[in-house]
């Protein structure tokens, strides 16, 4: 990997240089929460954020998107993507995008997702965890790839890791803004990462988790939490790796129809319903358990389906905590 330094004084110029790529989206504080919004000036962003409400998946798997429009009795594909910059993505969210890639870019490739992925220039940014983050226990607290540039905070600027050819190009084109990395910068980078590693308060015991959960299928803890859960589906919406969608045709007016897909949630009763009314996950307990099993799915080549961002905890109206549920399930076996 190539490393360069972006001095603090050049940050705004660097930000402005990215306009050449396309529209820039970054974390903006609104009320108590942060959101990825379209930004015109670097100053609009709040880069010292912990997590946004909706993760960057909203740019790739949209909450609602048109797949086709009906013209002259048959479908015409929708969507032409303009290049855009996603500024300030945390490493857990970079990992989450890689999980989405595994699904949407595997054969057959989802063309809508693939086009957006190609159109996106991703600038990662380092962060400090709060009491809900548990990405370290899942190994998603540091991204080795999946970004174009990654900025790590230094006392007097940013250490930039270059993760793609396009990232190289941006740095070459703006060479005047970057310095070589000094020994002092490396020492600062190391110190920052060590301080960060120590700052995690929450830990998910991930060893053997998949098997442990499988063995605890009938644990009474599931029932206890399913009764507490409101089945609102918030956790699905804010989860950076939840990707279930529903497809529906909608008439725009008497002559035109569109086929859309929108986020769906495995907490909805309709999720496991089939024609004729049989439901494969009829109770809230079934649905609650299903989500935890899905998030804890372990792929030997890619890890868990959860990146430890803490969103499901922060935005759960019933105050259910992911790690606590899994710990109690594990505890019920011991």
């Amino acid at each position, binding site marked *: 990997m190539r490393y360069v330094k972006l001095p603090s004084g050049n940050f705004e110029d660097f930000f402005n240089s990215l306009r050449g790529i396309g529209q820039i989206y970054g974390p903006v504080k609104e009320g108590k929460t942060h959101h990825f919004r379209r930004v015109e000036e670097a100053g609009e962003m709040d880069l010292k954020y912990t997590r946004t409400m909706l993760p960057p998946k909203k740019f790739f798997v949209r909450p609602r998107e048109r797949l086709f429009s009906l013209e002259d009795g048959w479908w015409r594909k929708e969507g032409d993507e303009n290049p855009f910059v996603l500024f300030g993505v945390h490493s857990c969210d970079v990992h989450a995008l890689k999980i989405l890639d595994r699904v949407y870019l595997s054969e057959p490739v989802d*063309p809508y997702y693939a086009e957006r992925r190609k159109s996106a220039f991703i600038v990662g940014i380092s962060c400090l965890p709060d009491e809900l983050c548990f990405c370290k226990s899942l190994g998603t607290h540091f991204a080795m790839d999946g970004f174009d540039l990654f900025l790590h905070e230094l006392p007097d600027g940013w250490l930039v890791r270059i993760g793609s050819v396009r990232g190289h190009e941006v740095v070459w084109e703006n060479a005047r803004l970057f310095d070589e990395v000094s020994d002092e910068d490396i020492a600062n980078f190391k110190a920052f990462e060590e301080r960060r590693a120590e700052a995690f308060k929450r830990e998910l015991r991930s060893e053997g988790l998949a098997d442990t959960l499988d063995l605890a299928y009938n644990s009474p803890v599931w029932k206890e939490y399913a009764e507490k859960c409101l089945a609102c589906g918030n956790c699905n919406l804010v989860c950076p790796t939840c990707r*279930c969608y*529903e497809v529906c045709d909608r008439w725009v007016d008497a002559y035109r129809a569109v086929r859309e897909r929108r986020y769906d949630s495995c907490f909805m009763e309709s999720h496991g319903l089939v*024609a004729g009314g049989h439901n*494969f996950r009829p109770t809230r307990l079934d649905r609650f358990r299903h989500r935890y099993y899905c998030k804890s799915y372990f792929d030997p080549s890619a890890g868990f389906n959860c990146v430890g961002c803490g969103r499901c905890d922060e935005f759960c109206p019933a105050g259910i905590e992911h790690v606590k549920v899994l710990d109690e399930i594990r505890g019920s076996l011991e």
Partner: protein
Amino acid sequence: MNPYESHPARILEVKDLTPREKLFTLRFLDEKLNEEFTFRPGQFVIVDVPGFGEFPISLCSSPTRSPIQLCIRKAGRMTKFIHGMKEGSVVGIRGPYGNGFPMEDMEGSNLILVAGGLGMAPLRSVLWYALDTGRYEHVWLFYGTKAYEDILFRDEVLHLLKHGSAMNCTVKLAYEIESPSCIYLEQGFSDRVCRGVVTDLFRGENFDIENSYALICGPPIMYRFVIRELLNRKLSPGRIYMTLERRMRCGVGKCGHCVVGTSVSMKYICQDGPVFTYWDALSTRGLI
């Protein structure tokens, strides 16, 4: 290529099978596609009625015969709509999807097809494939139905009931509701037609279990009883194939509706299935 894009196909024929099910015969408008389209018994397609929606349906015709046929039960909004469509109308078809039955692996063996109700549709594909190719030792079809009027592909089933032995095929029927037609059938074929459930049809049959495969399709409740019967006869869990149903939206492993299993074994019914062995069911929770 856009995997969500369907190809226009004309409805050549609509035939009433029962009061609830119709048989649709379809042909793609694109001639090249008609030539190229092939599938394995047990695979499904997604039918697209532009402006109304899509739904998954098993192919009930055999790849050895064209054109393609779909047996559609009026079960919801979409299927009710397509039941109202006439010959000459155009719908979209995309697929085929899923794994299908491993027909090549089973060559030279006995096939025990166990169908319950609408489960006859995908197994009809297997049945005709097996009889057309003649690559299988003997084919049994055990078909459980509610009433005489509910027998899907009645002409074909009754024809095989009478003349199947010439094709190394034994058809047996179980019905729940008594009617004059059923009693008449039972009188004619007392060894092969009875009032009861589909597992009753196993009585009196001796299979060469080492050389047999069972292929099951029916309502969820049926699997437990049929599998118990097969296991009692010492059929290996790896030789029991079942085709399963879920709410498949995309058909290509993206939308997540058909995901089953737990953290150690998650499966997409649309891609990893819809055909699974009983062994898969033993190692994947929630499969059946």
